[in-house]
């Protein structure tokens, strides 16, 4: 009887087990797939950098001219100046005001989700925030164009709005778009504060708000800054929604209530009107290079912040 089973077992055993090292094909294939992104970064960086310096290398524009305050790229209307300062300052200005508008709301929302919301409210908020992120930026732009801009034009005369197309309109639309990003990153950093610290604080006879204000916010400082930087990064890269409401005037930004422009908006507008090899076109690539430099700097900043926040 026993030997029968042994024979049967031997029959179903598929083959001899080999204990020998071989080439792990799966490891190689998946490794290659994972490394694609490294190649893409390298390729992208090379292309943007190479095309971005064509303005200096090919057209001989002095590097420092980039920091000039005047943008006059059209050779048919006189002396050209490829000053990118209006765009750089425009981007920084629009993004900063957007962050200032979005930060209080986003942090409040993150605190609500992390500390206050009962389970049912969290179940409502989470999908809602996903929808918020998911709405395409052109839709936000179209909303800004058809609702916000006319509203500002009609009701903002006293503040100095003329057409409604303005720095402020751009910042407001961006603030709305980055709100979910900032609040979700801030939420994660609030959740990362160990729950027993909250309990310890409450056991000392403090209120929930005191615990938030004096324990939670200081403890997640680096996370909050990270959230805002990531939000600003997203805002700086946003093109179409901003372009639709900002007025696109390539001047050094002076008033919140007047049209300005950004790097992304100008690329969006001019790319189709220029031809490769033209100096004007090369200046657009230089704008792209500036944008990539800015966003890479933000990534490095976030890395430093997370490292600081990491080991508690």
């Amino acid at each position: 009887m026993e030997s029968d089973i042994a024979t049967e077992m031997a029959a179903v055993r598929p083959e001899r087990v080999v204990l020998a090292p071989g080439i792990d094909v799966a490891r190689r294939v998946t490794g290659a797939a994972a490394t694609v992104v490294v190649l893409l970064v390298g390729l992208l960086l090379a292309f943007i950098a190479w095309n971005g310096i064509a303005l200096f290398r090919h057209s001989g524009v002095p590097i420092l001219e980039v920091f000039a305050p005047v943008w006059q790229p059209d050779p048919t209307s006189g002396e050209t100046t490829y000053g990118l300062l209006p765009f750089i300052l425009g981007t920084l200005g629009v993004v900063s005001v957007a962050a200032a508008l979005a930060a209080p709301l986003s942090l409040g929302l993150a605190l609500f989700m992390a500390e206050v919301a009962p389970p049912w409210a969290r179940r409502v908020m989470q999908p809602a925030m996903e929808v918020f992120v998911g709405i395409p930026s052109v839709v936000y732009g179209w909303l800004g164009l058809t609702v916000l801009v006319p509203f500002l034009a009609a009701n903002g005369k006293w503040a100095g709005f003329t057409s409604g197309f303005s720095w402020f309109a751009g910042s407001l639309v961006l603030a709305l778009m980055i709100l979910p990003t900032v609040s979700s990153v801030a939420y994660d950093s609030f959740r990362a504060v160990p729950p027993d610290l909250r309990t310890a604080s409450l056991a000392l006879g403090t209120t929930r708000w005191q615990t938030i204000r004096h324990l939670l916010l200081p403890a997640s400082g680096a996370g909050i800054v990270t959230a805002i930087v990531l939000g600003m990064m997203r805002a700086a890269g946003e093109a179409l929604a901003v372009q639709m409401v900002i007025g696109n005037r390539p001047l050094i930004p002076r008033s919140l209530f007047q049209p300005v422009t950004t790097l992304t908006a100008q690329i969006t507008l001019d790319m189709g009107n220029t031809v490769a090899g033209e100096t004007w076109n090369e200046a657009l690539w230089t704008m792209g290079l500036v944008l990539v430099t800015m966003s890479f700097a933000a990534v490095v900043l976030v890395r430093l912040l997370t490292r600081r926040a990491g080991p508690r």
Partner: protein
Amino acid sequence: MSYAPTIPASAESLAPTKIRVRDLRISYDTRVAVRDVNLDVPEHAVTAFIGPSGCGKSTILRCFDRMNDLIPGASVHGSIVLDGEEINAPGVQPVELRRKVGLVFQKPNPFPMSIYENVAYGPRRHGVSSRAALDEVVETSLRRAAIWDEVKDEYRRKNALSLSGGQQQRLCIARMLATGPEVILMDEPCSALDPIATLRIEQLITELKTQYTILIVTHNMQQAARVSDRTAFFTLGDDRAGYLVEEGPTRMIFTDPANRLTEDYVAGRFG
């Protein structure tokens, strides 16, 4: 102070009652976790809660400063009277109660800030803002928690998280003392500590009881025998709800308990 596992004689004398518990029942949603607890906790003495895991002793302890309010679905019935006042009465603010009743946790949980700021945290929140007053309360509390000598040179700068586990726990006790409590609840305060750190905390408990009413939950029977004046033994009923089997002077509970279950437990026959 020499240290030996003695059973203090003071336990038998009748101190005034600090906390009076009547027909306490605690449930989570529909499940009853603790039932039928009647207990008088004497002032300026150490009362130990012992019993097998899951018998609800920590749950009861946390009721005394209403930390169970923070657990969704938890509800408390019956009466807990502290200094003649019902703590679950509608007018009582948990925030005020928790200043009067301090809690020390199982795991040391200092805030990620300096030692000074840890201790000053409570007083600051309760409206103490003058530098001198804060300095004083911080120093007094650190002294009372027997950690002052170890940290006095750098307590303003040093991050509390760089302290050892035992030091962190004493810091947490200092932090709690700084809010001026009358009752101290300790929820297995030594379970995360090594024997030497445990000894320090036990010494501290004995020192503190002259000024505070202390309740301590412990798994460690020797600890209960060493530090407490009275001991309450809880266990799990057949209905999976915890209840108080008996309570009395520690010496009596450990040498001549009234109930068979207590005898078995302290003799190490179950739990």
